[in-house]
């Protein structure tokens, strides 16, 4: 009964259509409730699929019909049910469901309440298509559709006043354009795969690759590297991470769902799915590991100096995705997926908790230069928002990687694998793990510890129940999610072996685990020493700045890479555009206008013939008769 997977995609899609059709009938909060029910339905269908998979661990492919069949190219609407796709479906629907519930509270009173839920439902459907597609073209449809939803949700508040709307829509465009670069890589990879294997069905591609290509074959390396370019766009790795910090302009639930828990992990999913190809290309594996590890360190360092509550989490997501890409790149796929799953829980939890804080502060901000997302205006919220405080810290400890929280186990597996793979990679990740503890603890202390540093923080009150319940559930998962793959019993690793997916595991390494826990504690301790007394308001310099000096503004700007990209790419590109447009206007434009003139003129001439007089009409017909007869006569004689 793997057919449930079809229903799982159909439910959110039906939610989109229903909400569109009923948009004038349903009043708040009913569009949200409807959308939530649809995602719940998708989740139940995903769970039933998982149940069916437990009986038949090797999974199956469901073919719905043919889409494109021209020449050698056969694209079928086919969905794959196996351990990887099913786990992804469960993550997407579970996190998606909780975020839908939360959004009913968060988006209350928004002018485009229904539209928000339509986008969310569309996203869930597209994401489910992405992770279940058995054909690379169908996967690409999902890949682009989630990109579209991301664009729509980043720019969701495009009409805010005071230039903020403009900033939001610019951020949306930036995300879209930067992702195009990555998608170009992915498309080229698809072309190359089709050219080589004459098929785009994932199963056949992987099988043929394993049988026909040798280890280290240049074509395999090229494919894997191009795929990696696509991954670095979608999963915000160096050098294409640029869009993710700006993407925080969207509503916080959307950031949690799309830009933390699910869409950005699509790249990691792609590496795991196409693992058989990466295994053939050690150079690409090395590149993936290096890119991931450097990104992990880079993201963690940049997160250290942010003042915006969501930007900290954005850079943190970049950093954590680096961990996953490294793991998937060096072949420890189950560790990568494990971290993907725990991260989906704790990072969406952190985002939702941050959203709860923003929501509480937003309505009290009367100060002129007040910013509800600036942590320097917070402080002392633990007493005012106890549930948010507790759940936030559950997520934070998971992210920091303290035992027994889930992040400890998943991150530890990655560190152990990296330790076996290459010392440099391990050291980079290890340093990133330390900085992670430092920046998370810094954020947690800035928000909740000490005394309130603004009137809004004094007046803040706990968010409503519909927002708190999802936080509690996610906190539970973040706390105990490690049970999925404890060292020793290794449930996930066991399933993984049973399902026949390629795997290369490093066992539990007590030394690495102890070191990681120690360094995490050290990070938290350092943060307490610096921020424990909560002296970081707008008028003071950040305590860290005293110690880092001029390095601080540098990391605050993400090591200046954003500015560099503007100087090195955007500015020259604009100049080129101006130059080309001159050529276009005078050179091509002339030819163009000439052509348009010719078409227009001939259209005018021709319409003169069409007078509407019956005699004339019939005369034209007689010309036709004569032509046909003449042609037939010519053919018979010639």
């Amino acid at each position, binding site marked *: 009964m793997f057919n449930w997977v079809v229903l799982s995609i159909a439910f959110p899609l039906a939610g989109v259509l229903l909400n569109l059709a009923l948009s004038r009938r349903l009043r708040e909060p009913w569009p949200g409730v409807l959308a939530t029910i649809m995602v719940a339905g998708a989740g139940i269908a995903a769970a039933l699929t998982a149940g069916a998979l437990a009986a038949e661990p090797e999974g199956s492919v469901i073919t*719905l*019909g*043919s*889409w494109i069949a*021209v*020449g050698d190219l056969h694209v079928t*609407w086919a969905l794959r049910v196996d351990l990887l796709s099913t786990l992804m479906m469960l993550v997407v629907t579970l996190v998606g469901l909780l975020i839908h519930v939360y959004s009913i509270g968060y988006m209350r009173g928004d002018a485009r309440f229904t539209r928000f839920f339509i986008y969310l439902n569309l996203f869930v459907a597209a994401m489910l298509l992405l992770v279940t597609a058995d054909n690379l073209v169908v996967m690409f449809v999902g890949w682009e559709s989630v990109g579209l939803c991301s664009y729509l949700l980043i720019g969701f508040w495009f009409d805010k006043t005071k230039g903020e709307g403009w900033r939001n829509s610019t951020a949306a465009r930036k995300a879209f354009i930067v992702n195009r670069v990555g998608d170009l890589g992915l498309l080229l990879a698809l072309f190359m795969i089709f050219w080589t294997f004459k098929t785009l069905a994932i199963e056949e591609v992987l099988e043929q690759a394993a049988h026909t290509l040798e280890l280290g074959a240049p074509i395999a390396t090229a494919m894997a590297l191009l795929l990696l370019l696509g991954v670095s766009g979608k999963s915000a790795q160096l050098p294409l991470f640029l869009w993710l910090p700006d993407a925080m302009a969207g509503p916080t639930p959307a950031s949690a769902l799309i830009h933390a828990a699910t869409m950005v992990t699509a790249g990691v999913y792609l590496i795991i799915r196409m693992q058989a190809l990466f295994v053939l290309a050690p150079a690409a594996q090395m590149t993936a590991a290096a890119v991931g590890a450097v990104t992990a360190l880079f993201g963690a360092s940049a997160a250290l100096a942010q003042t915006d509550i969501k930007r900290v989490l954005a850079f943190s997501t970049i950093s954590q995705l680096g961990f996953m890409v490294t793991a998937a790149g060096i072949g420890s796929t189950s560790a990568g997926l494990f971290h993907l799953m725990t991260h989906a829980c704790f990072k969406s939890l952190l985002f939702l908790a941050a959203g709860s804080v923003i929501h509480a502060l937003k309505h009290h901000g009367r100060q002129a230069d007040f910013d509800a997302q600036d942590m320097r205006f917070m402080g002392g919220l633990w007493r005012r928002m106890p549930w948010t405080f507790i759940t936030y810290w559950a997520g934070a400890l998971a992210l920091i990687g303290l035992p027994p929280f889930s992040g400890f186990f998943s991150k530890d597996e990655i560190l152990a694998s990296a330790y076996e793979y290459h010392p440099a990679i391990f050291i980079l990740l290890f340093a990133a793990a330390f900085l992670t503890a430092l920046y998370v603890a810094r954020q947690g202390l800035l928000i909740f510890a000490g005394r309130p540093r603004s009137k809004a923080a004094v007046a803040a009150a706990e968010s409503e129940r519909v927002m708190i319940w999802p936080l509690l559930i996610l906190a539970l998962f973040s706390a105990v999610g490690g049970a999925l793959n404890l060292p020793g019993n290794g449930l996930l690793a066991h399933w993984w072996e049973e399902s026949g997916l390629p795997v290369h595991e490093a066992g539990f390494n007590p030394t690495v685990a102890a070191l990681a826990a120690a360094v995490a504690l050290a990070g938290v301790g350092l943060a307490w020493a610096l921020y424990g007394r909560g002296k970081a308001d707008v008028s003071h310099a950040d305590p860290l700045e005293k110690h880092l000096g001029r390095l601080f503004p540098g990391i605050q700007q993400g090591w200046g890479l954003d500015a560099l990209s503007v100087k090195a790419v955007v500015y020259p590109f604009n100049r080129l555009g101006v130059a080309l447009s001159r050529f276009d206007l005078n050179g091509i434009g002339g030819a163009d206008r000439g052509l348009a003139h010719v*078409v*227009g003129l*001939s*259209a*005018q001439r*021709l*319409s003169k013939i*069409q007078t*509407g007089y*019956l005699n*004339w*009409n*019939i005369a*034209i*017909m007689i*010309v*036709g*008769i004569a*032509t*046909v*007869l003449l*042609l*037939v006569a010519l*053919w*018979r004689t010639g």
Partner: protein
Amino acid sequence: MNAALPVGLLTLPLLSSPLAYFVGRFSGRRHGLAQFVALVVLLVAWAMFVAMAGQLAAGETPQFEYGMIAFRLDGLAMYMAALALGLSTLAVFFARQMFQARAGSEKYYAALLALTGAMIGLAGARDLFNLWVWFETMIAASYLLVVIFHDEALNLEAGFKYVVQSAMGSGLVVFGIALILLDTGTLNLDLIAQAAPHSAMAAIGSALCFIGFGVKVAIVPMHTWLPDVYTQSPSVSSAVLAGAVSKAGLVGLLRVTAALSAAIPWADLFMLFGAASILAGNLLAFRQRDVKRLLAYSSMGHLGYVMLGIGFGLHAGQTAGVYGGLFHALNHSVMKGLAFFSIGAALYLLSRPVGREHGLRLDDLAGMARRCPLLALALTLALFSLAGIPPLAGFMSKWQIFAAGLAANSPWVTALVVFAALNSVLSLGYYLPVVNALYREGASEGQTRLPLPRLMAIPLVVLSFLIVLLGLWPDAVRWLVAPASVLGG
């Protein structure tokens, strides 16, 4: 037993046509009853169609013979029956609100039923004489759709042109049939196909049939009736004419083509006149400000693509081209049906009286997206699909035509494919301004606050759904189109 279903499908719409008229004439309940009768009849016809589609899929062709008269619902006939029933059913939904129970509109349902029966008869006829009789019946019935209100001067003008030029085409067909009869001594299509005549007489006969049926298909230069008729008829009639009647002309032509395949160079004629129709339709549509006229010319262009696809198929002796052509013809029925229904709905919202529908300018559609989003979306989908934008239906079928042409591996055919593809791009030049107008800010004058009636929304929703579905899952109609593309089968 086997004959009951085909006889029923053929006669039911014809026999119930007067019933619909009398019920509507004497019930006096704003013609709702006539609409109801027509709907019931068509639904019963659908049921018979589905039953026979099952038989056909099982490899058994529904047919009956009565003396010399043979009627056989093979693949092509079932294809035509589906188009005829589909467009008529949707038109029945649409017509009542459109005509707002104007006196005399009950005749519409009678004419529509008769037309449906005639088109099914034409598709199933197995001899040339019956083919011609049904062709003539179809012209008569469709004439009524054009001049449904005899006191509207513009309707009458269009109807007059329509009937004169159709009669001329029909006359040419009769001449052609006479010549073929003289040459082969039989009218039976199967016997003619066996004889495979290639004398001069058969050639002239075939050529005359090409021209005569070509008038209905509106191949350049036999198209001259089309702009006035599509523009000045009620939109719901234009939808049926463009969606079904033009395809019936094509089916008649294909019957002759299959039977007399050796008589004249059909492939070259199809390709040549197809390409000419594409170019002429595009150029004539290009500067059009009148939306219905624009759609009329675009119909010419699209039938050109259909002819081109069939020509590719005949040229290479493979079914892929014919399949592409017939698939495009089906899509064109869906797209153009949707476009004309949407225009009808727009006219309704603009409160233009029926019968004075010409002169719907681009500017009149301004702001329609705000006024009625469903209508704007439906028309946009139709136009995008007509322009061949993926992943909509029109793209899939055009692509199959082009792919079939490229598979022929002949430089001339490849050149034609390039030509057609360039024309497809050119067509955006006149479709996009309509979309632009729909989504432009600021409503045009005369837009009422009336809501779009639900019955009118049904055809729009159904056809929009089909356009998307056929784009994503083109094989959904393979069962219908594939048997039809085996010509002469």
